[in-house]
């Protein structure tokens, strides 16, 4: 079957999601206000590590309007199983994934500030919060376990149930031949880079309503989630309610960026509480303080990098050793760096990589996915490319050119045994260089410097392992039905939370089925109507769900063509499909609209071709041919650094992206822009810092600074479209904007500062105070 790019694929079709969202008619989880709903507030620890010496909920329980107050003893013992489909069963169960010890409420001791100790259920959130204030908690504080490296040897343990704070490690090997190579290399450069702890900050915080009906043994969950099937399966395992009796629904979801992919502890606690209560719907809507203080975080990572480079500038070998903290209760406790290492070589021909990594538990909020969970590889490597270039006296663009994978190198087997194919890193690099007009920029930079102004230019490139397709992520389904009227519904296992899936999948279906886009309804976000799929995340939906929708559309079209051939007494090969009509090629008057074919299929089965059953349903599932569908991009950025204030002004921001066949360029560019803004924020503003007692220092938007409109530039886009080997030629691109932007911005700032001899910064954030300190020290 050949791919046809028709009327809709490749067009910036306006979004069908927009009218309801623009007029206030979205349906987010908190918008559903069923009568009799009860509301949850958590009592949380304000100590990072300590023993609970007193916990008295009697006064809270006595408050009128309070339905129940639960503590660890009420809920933890009832938990059946605690593991995520995406990661698989726990090691103790014979699985391969590392998880923290099981608890939904603090089990006698607290392990981070924000650790939920008790859960109050009341007739309104106001009363629930009043009651939470009445819970008496006394904690005897202990010295918290903090940092990325110190916990490795610290004998104080975050989890007394474990024998070490190390959750997962792969020690950096020492190989004599490699040591000799480094000892004799013409250039050896070593740096340590650090990320700043960041958090996803979906504008809609987390939230869910759980209604367990003990008489039916049924559970209905409405959640702000990226994956209804994950929370459904998780709730079933947690409570022991048969999975077939659990239904999960997500209508509109206000962003996630990874934070709503896996079920987190509070959500599990609410599920357990509703299960124990067994009657009314129980709703918890996270407030912003909770979201910033206790919703999962990321990017607290460091990397020790050493590059060996030959006299011409070819990278000979790299060592990379990553350190990261996973906090106390991450949804899974494995080292993110495991995946990062696999793709560390990025768009470059790096023949040898010696990797290591260590993840530690700390008395902080758990780590989970944040747009490009493995991004540390690009963030550190792309900064390193500039550091090395500067140290060996080469232009950073030239250094990249010397090492970048060229078209002739493809397919390219990396040092980590990944096969890169259908990528265009040198093309996107050259497109950015051209759009930046680097030569004129350098002249402008020199002029500016003469006036006392500091301009800088930075590049960041990456190859993204998009559409990860193993484990539960291996495939996506599409169930297509055509009504008697000839309109189609396609049901997906996806979970749009800003991704425009209702529009883009309709474009795919309308193109491949050959009908008007308004005749296609896209249904997702309800386990009762949607087939099992892993949800939306990991830059997968266009590639894998798109492939499933395409497969279903083509099968449906073939079926319609066969029916039409029968009715028209023509050969299927002589027919074509357009605008919801099947007609004889060259004889447009010999035509039958979908509605008539559908009526035949549903109401006159005896008129169908020999062997064809009644009805019009197609069940399709698409599994990409490879575990990763590679996409790539290069980012280029121009900044001005104010040497008096340390403020950074982003003057230009350019992205050249290859995400294969674009379904909707407007949506692609929107995804890039949003990701880049998050990446810029992670360098310049966002810092979820903790003090030495383990107190989070940024629990409001006045302390945790998100990028706002005045700090953001107009983005400029270049596109290279090379087809992937997946069905539609698509490549995932939802995360890339956030992956390549941090090093591009960092490199631009360091390029500006280098002009006045300031040594390059290596630890995020590069905020005004850090920049001023560097200028003063330099």
């Amino acid at each position, binding site marked *: 079957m050949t791919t046809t790019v028709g009327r809709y694929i490749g067009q910036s079709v306006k979004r069908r999601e*927009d009218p309801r969202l623009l007029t206030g008619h979205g349906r987010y989880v908190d918008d559903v206000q069923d009568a009799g709903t009860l509301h949850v507030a958590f009592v949380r620890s304000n100590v990072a590590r300590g023993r609970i010496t007193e916990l008295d909920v009697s006064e809270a329980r006595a408050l009128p309007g309070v339905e129940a107050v639960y503590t660890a003893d009420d809920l933890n013992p009832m938990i059946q199983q605690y593991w995520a489909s995406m990661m698989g069963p726990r090691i103790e169960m014979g699985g391969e994934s590392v998880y923290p010890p099981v608890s939904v409420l603090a089990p006698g001791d607290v392990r981070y500030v924000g650790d939920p100790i008790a859960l109050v259920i009341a007739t309104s959130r106001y009363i629930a919060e*009043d009651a939470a204030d009445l819970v008496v908690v006394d904690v005897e504080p202990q010295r918290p376990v903090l940092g990325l490296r110190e916990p490795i040897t610290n004998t104080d343990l975050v989890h007394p149930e474990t024998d070490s704070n190390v959750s997962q490690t792969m020690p950096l090997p020492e190989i004599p031949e490699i040591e000799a190579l480094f000892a004799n290399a013409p250039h050896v450069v070593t740096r340590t880079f650090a990320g700043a702890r960041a958090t996803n900050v979906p504008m809609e915080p987390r939230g869910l309503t759980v209604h367990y009906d003990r008489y039916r043994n049924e559970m209905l969950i409405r959640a702000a989630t990226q994956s209804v099937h994950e929370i459904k399966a998780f709730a079933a395992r947690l409570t022991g309610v048969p999975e077939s009796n659990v239904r999960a629904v997500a209508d509109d979801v206000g962003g996630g960026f990874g934070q709503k992919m896996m079920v987190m502890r509070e959500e599990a606690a609410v599920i357990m509480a509703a299960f124990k209560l067994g009657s009314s719907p129980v709703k918890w809507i996270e407030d912003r303080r909770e979201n910033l203080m206790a919703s999962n975080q990321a990017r607290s990572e460091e990397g020790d990098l050493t590059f060996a480079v030959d006299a011409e500038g070819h990278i000979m070998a790299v060592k990379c050793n990553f350190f990261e903290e996973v906090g106390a209760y991450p949804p899974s406790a494995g080292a993110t760096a495991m995946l990062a290492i696999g793709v560390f070589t990025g768009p470059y021909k790096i023949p040898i990589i010696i990797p290591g990594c260590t993840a530690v538990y700390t008395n902080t909020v758990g780590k989970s996915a944040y747009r490009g969970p493995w991004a540390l590889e690009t963030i550190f490597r792309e900064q390193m490319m500039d550091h090395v270039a500067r140290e060996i006296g080469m232009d950073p663009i030239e250094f990249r050119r010397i090492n970048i994978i060229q078209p002739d190198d493809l397919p390219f087997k990396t040092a980590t045994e990944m096969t890169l194919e259908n990528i265009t890193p040198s093309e996107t690099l050259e497109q950015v260089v051209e759009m930046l007009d680097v030569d004129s920029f350098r002249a402008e930079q020199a002029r500016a410097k003469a006036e006392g102004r500091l301009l800088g230019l930075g590049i960041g490139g990456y190859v993204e392992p998009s559409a990860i397709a193993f484990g539960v992520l291996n495939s996506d389904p599409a169930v297509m039905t055509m009504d008697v009227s000839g309109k189609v519904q396609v049901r997906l296992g996806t979970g749009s939370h800003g991704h425009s899936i209702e529009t883009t999948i309709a474009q795919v279906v309308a193109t491949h089925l050959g009908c008007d886009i308004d005749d296609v309804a896209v249904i997702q976000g309800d386990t009762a109507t949607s087939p099992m799929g892993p949800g939306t995340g990991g830059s997968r939906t266009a590639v894998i769900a798109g492939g499933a929708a395409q497969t279903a559309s083509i099968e449906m079209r073939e079926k319609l063509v066969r029916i039409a051939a029968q009715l028209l007494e023509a050969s299927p090969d002589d027919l074509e499909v357009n605008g919801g009509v099947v007609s004889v090629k060259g004889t447009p008057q010999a035509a039958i609209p979908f509605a008539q074919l559908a009526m035949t299929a549903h109401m006159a089965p005896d008129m169908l071709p020999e062997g064809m059953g009644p009805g019009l349903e197609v069940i399709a599932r698409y599994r990409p041919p490879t575990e990763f569908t590679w996409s790539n991009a290069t980012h280029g950025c121009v900044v001005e650094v104010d040497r008096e204030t340390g403020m950074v002004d982003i003057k230009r921001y350019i992205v050249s992206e290859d995400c294969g066949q674009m379904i909707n360029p407007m949506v692609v560019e929107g995804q890039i822009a949003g*990701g880049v803004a998050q990446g810029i924020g992670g360098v310049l503003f966002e810092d979820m810092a903790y003090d030495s007692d383990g107190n989070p220092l940024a629990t409001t938007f006045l302390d945790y600074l998100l990028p706002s409109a005045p700090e953001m530039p107009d983005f400029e886009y270049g596109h290279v479209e090379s087809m992937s080997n997946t069905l539609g030629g698509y490549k995932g691109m939802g995360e890339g904007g956030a992956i390549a932007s941090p090093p591009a911005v960092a490199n631009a700032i360091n390029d500006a500062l280098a002009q006045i001899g300031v040594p390059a910064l290596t630890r995020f954030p590069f905020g005004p105070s850090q920049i001023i300190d560097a200028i003063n020290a330099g």
Partner: protein
Amino acid sequence: MSETISNVTVTITVNGRQRDVTCEPRKLLSDVIREELVLTGTHVGCEHGACGACTVLVDGAAVRSCLLFAAQMDGAEITTVEGIANPDGSLSDVQEAMRDNHGLQCGFCTPGFVITLTAFLRDHTDPTDDEIREAISGNLCRCTGYHGIVNAARQVCGRANGGES
């Protein structure tokens, strides 16, 4: 404590209709709009006046409803995002421009931007780019990077977009 507080009743005009609302005096305007008036388009993104998702028009001015108590609103005229579309239900210029320029993704911040831009562009017919960006600086969006939103404002003022193809 809640049992000792007696409710208050205020009369508010909401999206052109006069409504009597009875609630606890401590109840935030944002919560009353969402729960008592069941106008759930007004979103709560922070409850501390920093994100702008809860922005509504009070007597024509864009204000944050999470920073007000409903009890203070007696006699006020309030417009929420549900009251912005044209009387025939078609999108307003601001809403249409947001759609044309992909000024929204998840849509959670969107009601706040629609209200803020509606008030700003009513009062400023030819703002500079910097003025547009400043006008929406109190509204946070995590999805769009603001480019589409700025382009929407430019479109309403009849100006060409910057950068986006």
